């Protein structure tokens, strides 16, 4: 497994720590940066991504809010338009329905409505993903939901190196950025931990360009495209396929908006086969978009029908038996490849 972590040192961080470190560094450098959300203060965020900030920066700049997402996300837009650089947390992406107007009609559109004269430099952090039996209102990814609506950048890192770099970039961006972090990658013990997400992270501040996918493993028989937790399933599947004598290329999207279609197309042009792995719902989402982006560019580049390993179009069930069955995993990817080779 070759993670392209250019410039990484040897100190490993979890994504949670990497996010907090990027935030702290920006807060030290820029008094306009502040953090708002439920339980981001003394608790340090339910998912650990604001840990240590309250102690360092105090209650004025690290603000616990009432359970009033519409108000405090709207407030972040107002503060951002007034020259601040808020980082605001929606605890679970599943809660977007109580505040989506503030997000997509306000945060995402004010730049446009002002003809670019008002900037909205804010970050909306939100947790995604299931796999730990938190049922249908606490386990969704909703990548497609956010990526579909114009006016906001959307990133979703798969490891701590990318998380720090993308978080720094998001904070510095004059546009709203939705930062989707997957719970199973956070490195919070109580959520289980995907080990591959905890990687060496440089201490110094750095930013990654938002909108660039990366080939995290090279191969020539099939392209596996995914993001966040899905990348690790792909890497495991690639390993399994290697054992069978096949070579899979893994593309980590990192950013859904902008979407780096070139990197995907280049990889599929090389491999001729495409499997999209997405923990978000199957239909009308990321997997359809990736496939369409490839074939509308070149309908003849595929040696086999593209496949998706996505979450079925069902609410997420509680029972671990059902949930695990429904989730994408490495076995399903390997299966999809086998079926592709058969047909």
């Amino acid at each position, binding site marked *: 497994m070759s993670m392209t972590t250019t410039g990484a040192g040897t100190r490993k961080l979890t994504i949670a720590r990497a996010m907090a470190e990027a935030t702290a560094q920006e807060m030290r450098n820029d008094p306009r940066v502040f953090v708002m959300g439920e339980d981001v203060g003394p608790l340090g965020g339910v998912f650990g991504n604001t840990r240590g900030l309250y102690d360092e920066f105090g209650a004025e700049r690290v603000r616990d809010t009432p359970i009033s997402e519409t108000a405090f996300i709207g407030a972040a837009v107002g503060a951002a338009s007034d020259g601040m650089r808020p980082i605001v947390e929606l605890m679970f992406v599943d809660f977007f329905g109580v505040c989506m107007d503030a997000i997509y009609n306000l945060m995402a559109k004010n730049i446009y409505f002002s003809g670019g004269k008002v900037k909205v430099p804010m970050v909306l952090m939100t947790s995604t993903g299931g796999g730990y039996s*938190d049922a249908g209102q606490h386990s969704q990814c909703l990548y497609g939901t956010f990526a579909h609506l114009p006016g906001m950048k959307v990133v979703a890192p798969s490891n701590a190196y990318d998380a720090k770099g993308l978080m720094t970039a998001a904070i510095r961006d004059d546009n709203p950025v939705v930062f989707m972090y997957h719970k199973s990658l956070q490195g919070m013990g109580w959520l289980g931990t995907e080990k591959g997400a905890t990687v060496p992270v440089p201490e110094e501040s750095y930013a990654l360009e938002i909108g660039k996918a990366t080939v995290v493993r090279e191969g020539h028989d099939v392209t596996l495209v995914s993001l966040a937790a899905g990348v690790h399933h792909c890497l495991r599947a690639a390993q399994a396929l290697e054992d069978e004598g096949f070579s899979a290329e893994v593309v980590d999207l990192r950013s859904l908006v902008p979407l780096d279609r070139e990197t995907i197309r280049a990889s599929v042009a090389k491999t001729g086969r495409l499997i999209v792995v997405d923990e978000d719902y199957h239909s009308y989402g990321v997997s359809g978009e990736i496939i369409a982006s490839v074939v509308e560019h070149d309908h003849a580049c595929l040696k086999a029908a593209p496949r998706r390993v996505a979450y079925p179009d069902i609410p997420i069930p*509680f029972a671990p038996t059902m949930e695990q069955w429904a989730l994408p995993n490495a076995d399903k990817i390997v299966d999809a490849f086998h079926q592709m080779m058969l047909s």
Partner: protein
Amino acid sequence: MNHTPTTEQRLWMYRHMVLSRYLEERIESLYMEGKTPVFNMAKGPIPGEMHLSNGQEPCAVGVCVHLTPEDIVTATHRPHHIAVAKGVDLDAMVAEIFGKATGLAGGRGGHMHLFDAKVNFSCSGIIGEGLGPAVGAALSRKLQGKPGVAVAFMGEGAANQGAFHEALNLAAVWQLPVVFVIEDNAWGISVAKQASTAVPRNDRRASAYGMPGVHVADNDVEAIFSAAGDAIARAREGQGPTLIEIETARLAGHFMGDGEDYRPKGEKEGLKQRDPIPRYRRQLLDAELLDDISDTDLVEQAHARIEAAIRFAQDSEFLPPEAALEMVFV
């Protein structure tokens, strides 16, 4: 007005508090199975988040004692005590918490999504989400000319969510038979009430909807009984909605695994000393409505009932995984 419970009501309330508490104690220990030494939510026979209601039982029993199965209750992410008091099928409820085929939803819902249509109970994991449905169920009864009151439970943190405002206003404009019950346990996860709420008491917000607002102090079972009795009677008589805020206590963490470092030192110990169940037991003993023998009996019956439900759940199978695809539509 209906200020004093009958003996039967008193014992019913006590019994259901005990039942709920024992259920949660058992869930607490079962939940930890497989989660030691390293706590991982995904592990064990009951995975996922677990919000215990220990300490909040008075709110559930003091309200639900006035309800029949036809009345509607919408509860929260912290639903067990209310489900028990509303008469949710215990076997099916525990089986649902275990995710089993015999569960209320065959394991699709889990602890935050308990639906028992037979007793008109439901709950949800989104703050404030049950309020609109309670208003709508009350409207349904009004339109159908059928009896029934809807009670929406929520935490004090939920009283700052927009849904609160919209639902209370709608219920008041349409003068529907709804009672809104706030269980004020002083905390929304790690955020204290005074850091989230612009008024010290949410019952004061009732005046923003021209409805009565009632406050009940000190987690007092019979004071809750009285306030809820009034409100539910008003609703039944077509006099519209009421808002009640109850000072209660969260004796556990927000959810299991919560380190609770944010709590002031000694707070929890203080609350435990005012645990409403021993308090009410003492009250009933003093009133000679209970004696040690009948109490022991009652407690044992509660234990037996819970153990039976747990056994039922443990002995049940999981649905085949593919059942995940069913019941999206009916």
